[in-house]
């Protein structure tokens, strides 16, 4: 039983890391209806830029701010060169455009900073908490806990931003209905820039967390693929859904690997989340918190 809880908690905490990536998807989808496949590439780009700046001797916080600035620039460029010409195109076209964008950003990031795997040290060890270990015998990684706190803070900030500020209200209006938002004078293009910039900064946070854990490397781009089932389970347009979906995927992936894996020869982590997502699609196609607007045939 103790082992079960250890696996469960480890899964939940790593699920939070998935949620961090999924958050960026949700933000962009809510505001512009674009399913941004390039989110993983943005995570990679942000992490690589950040580490690259640190290696150049830039202090931690200045590096963070500079990287944020780079993500804002990237967002402005994307809005101008990709989104604006493709406005009013079918969703699937925009999706394919973001696949192209993902390749572009990956090439750009590696072209500028090189393809070597780099480490990122945040000063927090990936060790079990001694206090909990002594009392219950369950190992909870300090680092995972730190990541959980960071995402909690991030989600709170985003929630406040979306619900209490003027810009946040404008974002929600755009998400609700593009034309109505335009009619009452909300500048659509500004909103897109803002939301892509925010998603870029969320990508930076996700990139720093994942980079500190697994090293900053090309594999970060595959996070986008892991975030897809998270979004389907949680609902593609809900921030709460992204968090809960991440937890479900994280926990079920680890539990599945430990308890189901041996039956079929192990290594099922690569496809288990997708099959979970498929089952969810059959039962509840809009996800746990998503709005019901999936068309059925």
């Amino acid at each position, binding site marked *: 039983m103790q082992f079960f809880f250890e696996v469960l908690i480890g899964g939940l905490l790593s699920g939070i890391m998935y949620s961090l990536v999924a958050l960026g998807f949700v933000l962009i989808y809510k505001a512009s209806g674009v399913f941004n496949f390039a989110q993983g590439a943005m995570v990679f780009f942000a992490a690589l830029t950040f580490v690259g700046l640190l290696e150049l001797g830039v202090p931690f916080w200045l590096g963070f701010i500079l990287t944020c600035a780079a993500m804002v620039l990237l967002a402005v460029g994307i809005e101008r060169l990709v989104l604006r010409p493709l406005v009013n195109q079918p969703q*699937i076209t925009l*999706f394919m455009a973001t696949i192209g964008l*993902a390749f572009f950003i990956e*090439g750009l990031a590696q*072209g500028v900073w090189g*393809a070597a795997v780099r480490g990122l040290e945040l000063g927090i060890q990936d060790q079990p908490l001694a206090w909990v270990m002594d009392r219950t015998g369950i190992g909870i990684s300090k680092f995972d806990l730190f990541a959980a706190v960071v995402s909690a803070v991030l989600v709170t900030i985003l929630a406040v931003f979306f619900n209490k500020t003027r810009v946040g209200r404008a974002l929600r209006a755009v998400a609700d209905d593009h034309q109505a938002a335009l009619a009452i004078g909300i500048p659509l293009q500004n909103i897109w820039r803002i939301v892509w910039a925010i998603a870029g900064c969320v990508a930076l946070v996700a990139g720093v967390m994942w980079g500190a854990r697994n090293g900053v490397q090309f594999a970060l781009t595959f996070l986008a693929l892991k975030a897809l089932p998270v979004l389907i389970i949680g609902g593609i347009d809900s921030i709460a859904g992204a968090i809960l979906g991440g937890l479900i995927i994280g926990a079920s992936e680890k539990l599945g690997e430990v308890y189901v894996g041996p039956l079929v020869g192990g290594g099922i982590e690569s496809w288990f989340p997708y099959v979970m997502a498929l089952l969810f*699609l059959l039962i509840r196609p809009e996800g746990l918190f998503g709005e019901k607007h999936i068309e059925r045939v």
Partner: protein
Amino acid sequence: MLYREAGQFRTSYAEDQQIFPIRQDRIAVALIVAVFLVITPLVASPYWLQAILIPTLIFSLAAIGLNILTGYAGQLSLGSAAFMAVGAFGAYNFVLRVPGMPILAAFALGGLCAAGVGIVFGLPSLRIKGLYLAVATLAAQFFILWALTKFGWFSNHSSSGVITAQKVTILGYVLASPVNKYLLTLVIVSVLALAAKNLVRSATGRAWMAIRDMDVAAEVIGIRPLRTKLLAFAVSSFYCGVAGALYAYTYLGTVDPEGFGLDLSFRILFMVIIGGVGSILGSFLGATFIVLLPIFLDNFLPPLLGHSLPAGLTSNLQLIVFGGLIIFFLVVEPYGLARLWQIAKEKLRLWPFPH
């Protein structure tokens, strides 16, 4: 001046419905076939055959497969490479386990295996579409590769799932030289491309396009979505499967499941987008473009810039150019190279008197 249909009258329905109604088109197609069938094998070097022509043909076939599904039936798939893997491993196992199995029959059976798997993973398409379906096909991609690596039976218990294709023998002749393999690939791809072209002109193809354009309306006029969509998945996977078998037998010779990764799926998707969504010709153009682009970047770009680029930069430049081109095509010409060709043809018809 030369390309004009004036004076060509069609006097029967059969003439009106032929694939190439204009005489010049028929001559051009016959010339192209003659060049690739007779002249290319005589003049092309083994490098050209083995490294450029054969992969181009194979990828064209895979792109036709994906184009049937995505371009004609409107179902986005990110798992085409996995269906290629099913075709390759299927053909391998048929040749391995059935004594005296003719190689062409093995290719076809490999394709049928892929079609069966395609139908299974196409089932969710009945309830979901668009991005959600893309995730379902992504599940196919990861699950199939995992299964092929994990269960040794598929690869005859070789380490990490690597298979080495058996000798290609047709009626006692061993096809070993690049020229032979090229001709075999060319014949198979041409026949299947012709079949695809006719299929999308038929009632089946029209049903696919109706489903793509508006599924509800298609259902109202009596097209059964279940049958139509699953048929699209089956035919598309069959084409991908045969392409996969050719990939193993005539192109690489030795393949492992990892070779059919997500990257390959994306490359095939790019071929379809760049070549032209919903066009058989576009599949060939797109495949040619994607196969030639890296070679061009490797060989011709450094002299153009005056000095050689570091090796790492070229591959990143490739990513940037790929990504940029995808966006460029989606923005400027969503129907791809095939549409550019069509525009050129329209212009040519009027030239040199544009009025």
